[in-house]
């Protein structure tokens, strides 16, 4: 009761100055730079009738693009969860030569422009490229296929997963692990029954972030994928760009609306996870 009163008091008379100013400026800038442009997309797409909207977004090549984007992003995110888990584990638990270098390199896909990553991967995995040549001899074609697309998405997604898991692993209370160990659980059992459940929210957050990035990715995938409608290597962002170049704004906004709805749900999912996670840590 007393705490409640104090809280109310603070809310009414804020001691620190600047609430009105910062609130005003933040809302103004947010509205003009982020919200208004996005609302324009919504307004324009709501001008379409529902039947027209469905006709536009259910065209064969657009459905294929959604299929390709979602499928490749999911596969890439799963692979990233597996390797991201190992990387985070190694970086948090072990000491070895070059650890800081490894830790710094993880950040590379964040810092490298997507177009640079795109042309580099495309050249690297082309039939004459450094990695493409040996793979072609093995009978594996990477560039201009969904495999290449997935590799590009693994490249850009890996830091999301590692950076989501790392802090949680660092702050993990070791007493549960010790208890499990003392009670005679094997290392594998301790990992799967004690550590993994604690990491699950972080792992899912990393998955969500990597997936959200992957599904909208443009620069790093358009060169390696080849963008062929026949081979179904067109991604959604490429289709939007193509429609923009043809001045087909109705299709572009309709597809963008579907993408925005998907992004919204991923964002919601990640937020709920993070709230759960902070509740959990506060609880402990």
């Amino acid at each position: 009761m007393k705490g409640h009163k104090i809280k109310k008091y603070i809310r009414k008379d804020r001691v620190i100055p600047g609430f009105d100013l910062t609130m005003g400026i933040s809302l103004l800038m947010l509205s003009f730079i982020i919200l208004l442009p996005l609302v324009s997309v919504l307004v324009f797409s709501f001008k379409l009738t529902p039947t027209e909207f469905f006709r536009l977004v259910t065209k064969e090549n657009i459905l294929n693009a959604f299929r390709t984007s979602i499928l490749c992003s999911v596969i890439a995110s799963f692979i990233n969860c597996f390797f991201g888990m190992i990387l985070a584990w190694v970086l948090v638990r072990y000491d070895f030569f070059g650890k800081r270098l490894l830790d710094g390199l993880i950040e590379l896909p964040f810092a490298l422009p997507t177009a640079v990553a795109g042309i580099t991967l495309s050249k690297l995995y082309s039939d004459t490229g450094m990695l493409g040549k040996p793979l072609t001899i093995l009978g594996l074609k990477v560039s201009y296929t969904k495999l290449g697309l997935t590799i590009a998405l693994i490249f850009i997604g890996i830091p999301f997963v590692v950076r989501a898991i790392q802090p949680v692993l660092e702050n993990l209370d070791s007493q549960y692990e010790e208890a499990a160990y003392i009670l005679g659980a094997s290392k594998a059992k301790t990992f799967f029954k004690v550590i993994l459940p604690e990491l699950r929210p972080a792992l899912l957050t990393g998955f969500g972030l990597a997936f959200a990035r992957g599904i909208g990715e443009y620069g790093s995938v358009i060169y390696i994928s080849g963008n062929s409608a026949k081979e179904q290597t067109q991604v959604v962002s490429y289709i939007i760009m193509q429609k923009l170049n043809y001045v087909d704004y109705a299709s572009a906004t309709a597809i963008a609306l579907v993408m925005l709805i998907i992004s919204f749900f991923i964002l919601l999912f990640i937020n709920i996870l993070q709230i759960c996670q902070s509740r959990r840590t506060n609880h402990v």
Partner: protein
Amino acid sequence: MQENKRKESKATQIVLITISVLFITLMLVIPLISVINNSLSEGVSFYFKSLQTEYVLSALKITLLATVIAAVVNSFFGIMAAWLITKFSFKGKQLLATLIDIPFSISPVIAGLAFIMTFGRLGWGSNYIDKINEFFGTNIQIVFAIPGVILATVFVTFPFVSREIIPVLNAQGKEEEEAAALMGASGFMIFRKITFPHIKWAFLYGIILCTSRALGEFGAVNALSKTRGETFTLPLEIDALYLSGSNDSITSAFAVSSILVFIAIAVIIVRNIVEFKAKKKLEHIES
């Protein structure tokens, strides 16, 4: 921690470290080396020559302009938003924080589309621009012109600075500011003397992240910029060079890319330094 390390067998450690190093080498290091390798494939003089063409210099100018404006605007916003979110409690705070993060989770191509739908021929904003132009006798264009490129760059880098500062301020709490305010310090004074020293490094790192992303933005700018040599940024120039398809132009594309790679490496190094400083400060406080 120490006990955890002892419990695991050496063999598991070696296997896991090897997997990590192999994965990073294959996925990240080899591509990095191959950029440099490709950019030098026609010799050093060709490398420098391809950096000095008219198109590249014009793209460099546009890129720097957009980057500087994005860094300034987003630094200002970042400080305002971080102060608001960490120093006060109000309804809808979580929603506000989520809205600020929107540019992280939507495709940059959609950001470009959004500006076309706002200021393009069909957008509601174009009427206002026309009126302003009529009134002042100017000829301001937004879409497919430099202002559009700048707006798109500001959009995609919008949350970078606030995102770095907010966790630091949250960890610091607001007792110090409250004490200063009760003793009669003005808002600006509190910020300068108390808050800013805490966020110095996070703020710097936020600006660096914002800059590196602004330099490399591709999708959003691609939708809004169509004239090579006039409104193209470096990534668009790289795209144009690479798609020209001749061996020379592809090498030039990698040469221009190598500049952005060097910047990326510098950003990573600075990040490590900033993190190191923050850690040292934390130890200092604890001891």
